[in-house]
């Protein structure tokens, strides 16, 4: 009975304590839109502070620009895209593949790491595009890199990669 009560209390008090996984502040966006992605980092590696945050940019997300952070150095890894993309009349065949912030975020603090990018129409509406994230600490790493297999519930994953659900393109835009 006591354990049941503890459990129920834990459940009832829990609404405020989200975001221990790394995840996007806005987890959905329209196909073809330019998206401002903010990835929240809620804890370090088993109590140790986070020293590096690495975000992999998936295929289909182009023209990515990171938002710099005070106190953090920023590194951008570029490479060839698998396909070429039309970006306002320019054919883009290469661009940003990985963003790396280096600094320090204590385990007790929360922070967001942001970038802007275009979600091209190669990303089908209704699908989710995943941005694998690696948090490096002095004692190891937390890897939010698991991508659910087809039909798998993302909640079943221990370390799910943060994702954005692609919605139908809107008509109100320009």
């Amino acid at each position: 009975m006591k354990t049941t009560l503890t459990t129920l209390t834990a459940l009832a008090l829990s609404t405020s304590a989200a975001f221990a996984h790394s995840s996007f502040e806005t987890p959905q966006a329209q196909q073809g839109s330019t998206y401002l992605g903010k990835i929240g980092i809620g804890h370090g590696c088993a109590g140790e502070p986070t020293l590096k945050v690495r975000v992999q940019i998936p295929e289909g997300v182009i023209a990515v620009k990171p938002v710099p952070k005070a106190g953090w150095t920023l590194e951008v890894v570029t490479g060839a895209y698998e396909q070429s993309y039309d970006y306002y009349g320019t054919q883009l065949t290469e661009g940003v593949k990985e963003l790396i912030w280096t600094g320090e975020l204590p385990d007790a603090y929360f922070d967001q790491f942001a970038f802007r990018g275009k979600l091209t129409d190669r990303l089908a509406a209704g699908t989710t595009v995943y941005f694998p994230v690696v948090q490096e600490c002095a004692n190891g790493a937390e890897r939010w890199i698991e991508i659910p297999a087809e039909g798998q519930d993302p909640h079943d994953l221990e370390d799910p990669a943060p994702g954005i659900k692609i919605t139908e393109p809107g008509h109100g835009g320009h």
Partner: protein
Amino acid sequence: MGIAMKNLPRVLCPIFMFLLLAAAPLSAFAHAEFQGSTPPANALLDDLPTEVILRFSEPVGALATDWLLPDGTRRDATATAGPDGLSLSAPPASGRGTYVLNWRVVSADGHPIGGALVFSLGEATGMAPPDTPSSAVPAIIARFLAIMSMILALGATLYAAVVAPLSPGAARRGQGAALAAMPLALIALGAYGLDLLGRGSRDLLSLSPWLAAVTTPRGWGLLLGGIAALVAGCHWRNRTPVAFLALALGAVSLAVSGHASSGGARWIGQPLMAFHATALIFWIGGLPPLLAGLSRPDGLTALRRFSHVALPAVIVLVASGIGLVLIRGAGPSALIASDWGKLLALKLVLVACMLGLALWNKTRLTPAMAMSPDTAQIRLRRSIGAEIMLGALVLLVAMCFRLTPPPGSETASGPIYLHLHGSEIMADLEVSAAPPAAVSLSLTFADTDFGPLRPKEVSLTFNDPENGIGPIRTSAHLLADGMWQAGPVTLPTAGPWDIRIGVLITDFKQATLNGTLTPPNGDHP
């Protein structure tokens, strides 16, 4: 009543709000992470700890915690939330050997996480398979009564459908058996649940033994048997199809339980057991109505008709019985050496006596009954009565097989080799010994074209779903020769253990391999 009704919203609203609050965070992301324990996993201790601490990245509530002790028994552990994590009561002292704390906790988001903390006192022994706990005897007797009652109910219906109309007494007894079968099956289910968990009878009031029993094939086999008896007892008007439906249900109920339902030869073993059960239900179940009908005018005709059907039934019984022993794949010497073999021998002697009596009935007493009904009838009554007693004994012996694992399912030591194949990578795995044991693992990886693969990190997760132990996690490290090494990690039961290997291929890409570590045995698939 009126006051209670008026107060209802006031009572219900907080409950509803509470449920809303409780349900809302289920969709959010926040699992607590296990950060270690005191004593640490796989520790070898000189004294039992006075308390055990589990540390997590955020506050957790305990869902279920229990101890598995070196003697194979289970005990509840009391958990209290402390500043450093979850503090658990010390395990009850039960000597040297391996202790397992099985824990399941829930974190803020309502997502349960679980694991098993394994440490040993003095030496790592693994769990002894619980040797004949006191709960086994009630479970055997209850199952015997439930099955006997089902056989009597089905036998009477079949007799009426195939052999001859039932005498009023036999019909009453058949109905009685049919009505008793379900309650007896429920009692047997509870007793089996207690046996499974190794608990005392006061735990019958809790849900866990029932759940444990009904989720096993033997548990729902018992319920199916009860249903078969009810079907047999219900419709006496159009009885032939109903009798055969009930017979099929009864045969399946026996086929899904028992050793025939385990091991690699299951797909042959279960149909064989179904035939075995069909024949034995007809034979043993048909004898009491036969006995009751002897003094009726059509007694002799019934006797001849019964013996007409019983002969093929006995042939099926013996042939399927031989088949069931053969698929164990154990040689005669292994059979003789094992307790299982001794029980089997006892059963065979009893069956031989039954066959002898049946043969005597058929070749001597039946013709004699045609000549001088009165004297022969008395001897025939005694003979059939003895046959029924023997049949019940055979069944009781068969239930006792529960106490001894069949030869071929004993674990062998020595390394086990596994090849695991994923969509992108594969692994060869050598496990140093068969669990229960402290095992070391060596792993080599390749891509699916047999090309070399150098993972960045390798982690292993072990789970024993049958005994509800785990997950036990460990990580592997790279040796100079390109091989990965993990352990020693203590796997405290014989398993089967599910193994999951997480292989980090690049910083952002992980592949998962799944396999099962089954105890090596003589079962030939």
